[in-house]
């Protein structure tokens, strides 16, 4: 958690760039962009102190639409890049953003280990159960019977449960939000940013072009019926029976954040040469 700058409150507008998103009109990501900028305003960190790191996909276009520093990296590796950045520059506020294909498929391995490592990052996944940018292939969160060209009749594969996996792997803050509630989502993102360690926010964000049926998510999304828990075992029981539409903060952990970041130097560079110095003969070493 970063110290909040004490100065005039900023508004969501402060964090918006002048680039207009190319997302299809009606896309949930517009709302997520709005929520992210509102959340940053709540946290009131200077835009130049924020870096938004992303991968490849429609959702990963988001950095250029903010007024913060951005890194639009390669497919699936945003968490790795963000980890390097945060460990090297711990004073920055680092947000990681991307979609379900980028994050859970090719990025799956990095997701597991980012949760374990618990570096202070906030990871936002805009989940629309599809690969949008490449025109509609199933993603890990797509239902097993969703028909597509690449998997006719459906993949037949069990759906990936990111929240369960995040919990099992050690994420320190786990929440689900819905793009249909931009203010509620802004609230959750702000909490995630302020919560120490790896904060994971999965945001249901419908794709109007490839999954128009997701308009019904408005009817299905509901506030989670229970308050967030700090007990991992209880969270696990809840998440294992979660149907994917409970909205809210679901788990708040208290694991210590990653401790092997940069610290201030403890010695001079030249002191390291002591390892190499060949000692002269000590009269005690040589028997008389």
């Amino acid at each position, binding site marked *: 958690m970063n110290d909040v700058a004490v100065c005039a409150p900023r508004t969501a507008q402060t964090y918006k760039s002048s680039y207009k998103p*190319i997302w*299809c*009109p009606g896309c949930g990501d517009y709302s997520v962009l709005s929520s992210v900028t509102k959340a940053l305003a709540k946290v009131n960190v200077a835009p130049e102190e924020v870096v938004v790191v992303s991968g*490849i996909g*429609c959702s990963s276009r988001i950095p250029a639409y903010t007024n913060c520093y951005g890194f*639009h990296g*390669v*497919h*699936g590796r945003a968490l790795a890049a963000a980890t390097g950045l945060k460990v090297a520059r711990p004073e920055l506020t680092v947000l990681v953003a991307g979609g379900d*294909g980028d994050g859970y*498929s*090719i990025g*799956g391995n990095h997701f597991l280990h980012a949760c374990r490592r618990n570096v202070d990052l906030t990871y936002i996944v805009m989940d629309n159960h599809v*690969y*949008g*940018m*490449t*025109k509609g*292939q*199933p993603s*890990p969160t797509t239902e097993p019977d969703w028909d597509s*060209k*690449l*998997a*006719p009749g459906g*993949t037949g594969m069990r759906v990936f449960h990111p929240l369960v996996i995040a919990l099992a792997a050690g994420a320190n803050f786990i929440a689900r939000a819905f793009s249909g509630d931009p203010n509620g989502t802004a609230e959750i993102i702000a909490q995630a940013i302020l919560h120490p360690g790896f904060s994971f926010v999965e945001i249901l964000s419908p794709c109007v*072009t490839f999954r128009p049926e997701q308009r019904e998510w408005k009817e299905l999304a509901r506030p989670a019926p229970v308050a967030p828990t700090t007990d991992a075992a209880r969270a696990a029981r809840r998440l294992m029976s979660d149907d994917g539409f409970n909205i809210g903060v679901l788990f708040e952990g208290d694991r210590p954040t990653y401790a092997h970041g940069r610290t201030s130097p403890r010695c001079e560079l030249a002191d390291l040469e002591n390892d190499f110095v060949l000692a002269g003969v000590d009269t005690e070493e040589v028997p008389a």
Partner: protein
Amino acid sequence: MMLATTQEQEARPRAIVPAHADATSLSIAVAGSGGSGVMTAGSLLLEAAGKAGFYGLMVRTSGPQIRGGEAAALVRLAPRPVNSLDDGFDLLIAIDWLNLHRFADEIALTPASVIVGDPDAGDLPEALRACGARYVPLPLKKMAKAIPGSWINMLALGLAGALAGLPERALEAALRASWTRGEAGLEANLTALRAGIAAATGIEGVRPLARAASRSDADAAVRDSPARWLLSGNEAAGYGALRGGVRFVAAYPITPATEMLEWMAPALAKVGGALVQAEDELASVNMIIGASYGGVPSLTATAGPGLALMTEGIGLAVAAEVPIVVVDVMRGGPSTGIPAKSEQSDLSFAVGGLHGDAPRLVLAPASIADCVATTQWAVQLAEALQAPAIVLSDQFLGQSRAILDVPPQRAGVARRLTAAANVPDYKRYRDTENGVSPMAIPGTPGVVYTADGLEHTEAAIPSSQARDHRVQLDKRQRKLVMHDYGAAWADVEGEGEAAVITFGSAAAPVREALARLAARGVNVRLLVVRLLAPARPEHLDRALDGVTRVLVVEQNHGAQFYRYLRSVYDLPGKPASFHRPGPLPLRPAELADAILAWRGA
């Protein structure tokens, strides 16, 4: 000597030979945005031309939006097969002007061109006015509105088709064949089509394709012409792979290769194969290695960023001698680059980008039709030589659609040399004379072995011994270099002391450029290389017999092919290079200019 282009030269269209320099083909662009359906119009125009006995090529271009953005269908029609775009366009039909300036470089126009646009959509934009083309205003939107239930792109289709000289029957047939939305809509759109055809009669200045003298001649032309296909390079490559015997594919979506995989998914199921969508490219390449180790010819398709991830896997296939085929549909690089545009900039990577000494096969189809034969050949070679094969296709070939004569069947399905059961003293990596050792397929008794990326003895036991390393390195190289690839390794055409060497999608515009020069009495030999790796110097020497100077032509910034050829071959004289990067395709006129200038020197 480098004839690299400067940025400035790239910014404006090169000295354009008037489009009518190629008097037999007609180039039409249909542009519009926000649901105007120009891609569909272009596709139907191409199909109609096919039904009328013509050939054609269609290239798509669009803005960054997934739906509703500006788009243009670029269609070239001719009485003979065409594999390249012409220098400019004879006709531009603009349904609206929104962001059309984005396509200014791609849709070059001259004073001989005609632009049809809708005056209600605003004035002709300055960029288009400046080219001097003749502007014919036509109230397309009003005309479409007057036919309830019709689409404006059908008007454009009728207009384009009639100006091209296509018979109404062909246009109608194309529309009917594609229609899936009910009778009422079909009638309305047929009406729109006819309205477009009628509107063409008032428009001068577009010279139609060569027309048959009578209707019966036209019918005869269609009836007597050999069977033809209409498909994209991606589909062609997918089909070629199946012809070669591929029955397992691992897939990870990436522009511009996804369509190949999407075509193969149901096709494989039909022929008893399987496709698995992988979690990423690391998984894809390892999945196909696994399947191939099990005895099933396997393939994946990707683009530059995916190929980069697959390199470790390809190296494993080299070391363990497991056949795989990786199709790389090249796009603008480096890194994420320009995903929806073509470039030939993965060549260095394909021929060299593996750690260690890792010989592999690299092939490049030279046209959409060639995607069938070359992919099939790649499968055959990979299987025969128990090695990975990279097929360098590109976005231009992969995503363009063309009408072609049915490609001749390439002889032979892939055949892997396998070990019989219970062979005494079986050694998987036996040092044979031609370097190919029988491969035991799991399930075969008496010849079990463990495949390994670690260096190994002939008996497949891991080894760090100098002798074993030497033997295996020699074997893996020898098997590729000693193989008899036959005549397909390159196309050698024409005579002359000067030769142009090229590969892939650059071949078609180079061929056209050379045809224009030949018409002026300037003769240049052409070498289109299909087998890029391994390099075989004596074969190149034979192809360049009598040649004293060569010019290497390619579409990338770093002159990759030029540098590669110079590194593995002794080229005659002082080899020269013409290279420029994507996203704009190479055009015959710029190549003709460059070749003439080089040859004159």
